[in-house]
């Protein structure tokens, strides 16, 4: 049973990590906790579902369209809600609250369009057969989820550390004003970050939608809570932190159900979060130096 639970935890942890990746990226660069990320995630799932049901698209186009839709939505949210506040030098709280408004707006509109019911991807979309590895049973999709989460994380780390664009993003994350003085188009970096981080959320939405068969307008809510826990755990704004934090939360949830009791699952996983924060207040990868901007 342990191996199966290990596999379960790996899949769940990867989903959390994938969601948290974009979440933490926006925080790292824009210094905004965007509470619209759950709505962005939901739109990605619906967009993926739409191309599959309307145009019979496969997995890759579904993920790409989901990422596109979420990316554009994230970019719009930045453009219409966060940027005006940034221009007026409101930090942290005001943009965060603006994103709550965006989330409510997007969720209400989608409820008007899609209704309150749940949808799923067609049955034959992904093969339901399970593969056996030792004592683990995994479907192809679960393996893909773990792979995609890992790949996206590596790509983002590569882009941030090895490209000129990444250098610009890191400079802006360090201090936007100095970056601007150095001739970096700060505004463009903000927008590009919002787009790509939201696209990551969209990818998470499509994969979650396919694997867990529950696409509905409120699907972003529960994972938002987990996402916030994950980025605090991993260190706010840290890419590795999002992945490690996601996996830790996934393992904590699964293992507490497996070996203790499902009644205490949230108490145990969030208790763990509490203990880690006592020992490392800035999260696992976080540094305690705060940016003064």
């Amino acid at each position: 049973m342990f191996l199966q639970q290990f596999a379960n935890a790996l899949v769940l942890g990867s989903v959390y990590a994938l969601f948290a990746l974009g979440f933490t990226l926006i925080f790292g660069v824009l210094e905004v906790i965007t509470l619209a990320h759950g709505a962005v995630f939901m739109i990605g799932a619906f967009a993926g579902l739409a191309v599959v049901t309307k145009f019979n698209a496969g997995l890759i186009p579904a993920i790409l369209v989901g990422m596109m839709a979420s990316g554009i939505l994230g970019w719009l949210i930045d453009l219409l809600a966060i940027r005006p506040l940034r221009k007026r030098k409101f930090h942290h709280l005001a943009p965060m609250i603006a994103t709550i408004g965006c989330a409510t707006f997007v969720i209400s509109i989608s409820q008007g369009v899609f209704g309150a019911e749940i949808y799923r991807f067609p049955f034959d979309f992904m093969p339901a057969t399970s593969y056996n590895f030792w004592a683990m049973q995994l479907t192809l999709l679960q393996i893909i989820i773990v792979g995609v989460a890992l790949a996206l994380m590596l790509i983002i780390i590569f882009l941030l550390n090895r490209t000129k664009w990444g250098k610009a993003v890191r400079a802006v994350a360090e201090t936007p004003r100095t970056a601007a003085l150095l001739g970096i188009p700060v505004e463009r970096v903000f927008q590009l970050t919002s787009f790509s981080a939201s696209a990551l959320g969209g990818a998470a939405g499509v994969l979650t939608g396919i694997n867990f068969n529950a696409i509905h307008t409120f699907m972003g809510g529960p994972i938002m809570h987990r996402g916030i826990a994950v980025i605090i755990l991993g260190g706010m704004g840290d890419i590795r932190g999002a992945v490690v934090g996601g996996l830790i939360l996934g393992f904590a949830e699964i293992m507490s159900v497996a070996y203790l009791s499902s009644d205490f699952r949230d108490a145990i996983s969030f208790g763990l979060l509490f203990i880690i924060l006592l020992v490392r207040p800035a999260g696992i990868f976080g540094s305690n130096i705060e940016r003064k901007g």
Partner: protein
Amino acid sequence: MKIFIRITVFVAFVLSLAFTAQAAEIKIGVTEALTGPVAKYGVPIKNGFVLAADEINAAGGIKGNKIVLVIEDEQAKKEEAINVFKKFIFQDKVLAIFGPTLSNSAFASDPIANKEKIVVFGTSNTAEGITDIGPYVFRNSVAEADILPIVTKVATKKLGLKKVAIIYGNDDSMTKSTYEIFLRSIKAEKLEVVDTETFAKGDIDFSAQLTKIKSLNPDAVFCGALVEEASNIILQARKLGIPNKIRFIGGNGFNSAKLIEIGGAAAEGSISGSPWFLDDPSKINQTFVKAYTKKYGMAPDQFAAQAYDALYIMAEGIKAISLSGNVEKDRTTLRDALAKVKNFKGVGGLFSFNESRDAEQKGRVLYIKNGKFAIYAE
């Protein structure tokens, strides 16, 4: 010439207005959760009412009087339900009220209706104690407490169950009550519970709980879950290698076409209980399902069916009284007439109110067979 035709049409129009204005309107308040997460129950309920009202009006209304539904969203919030009730009673002066969607809200709003002596008719409130609020509170929703013991008994006998597992949502009053009723009936059947697992609302991953259940090898799994979680639980169970011969047995949450739509082949054989089911071959039900599907583009669920029946039951009550035009007086006479409704033939079978104004209706044990609900046992 053209002018003449226009004048004739205009006169005819004015005349028709004058004639329709003569027939009285019967105003009935409908308040359900039409936005927010609970809307997935509230909207089908509203649809059921609207369909029934349209049918009654198309057939000439009740003694020539048309039914007018005043529909308000209560957002599944207690405060909103109270506000809407006050608006219905004092401002719109409705004859009777349908709603609210959740028992939670009903406990807050129904006492107001009872105090003002106006019938409030719940179609989806299943909690114990709703009709104890007072003599003006009615409902046609069949309580799980009446049906699930029968379901458990039938399943135990037919499947030869000995040891079972339970999985339920422990942060929702409905799924928790399903669990408690199941536990009672499991004890009554002297079954051994090998494992009890819980989950939280909005969970999408049940693999840990199901892996544990699989390792303990039960004969069946009892499940207290709303349909989105229920269908996902069953799907993931099959993916983890729990075979179809290990049946899932559920409460009200299972009574939805969504379970089949989302669960597909994995849901085959799942057992539940309800007075109404989609594929009931009776003529009245088939007509209802066809009309509903045509009007709303999707199949009705149990909540839509109960609302549909409820409006016809209300019409029975209104038919039995003569409206005086004094709404306070009519509200009281309607209450007495409604309480006398017996052996009404609806889409959910024969219906009567018992002395505490609760539903008296035969429940049926159902299972999913070839992608449809079918009778497992009467």
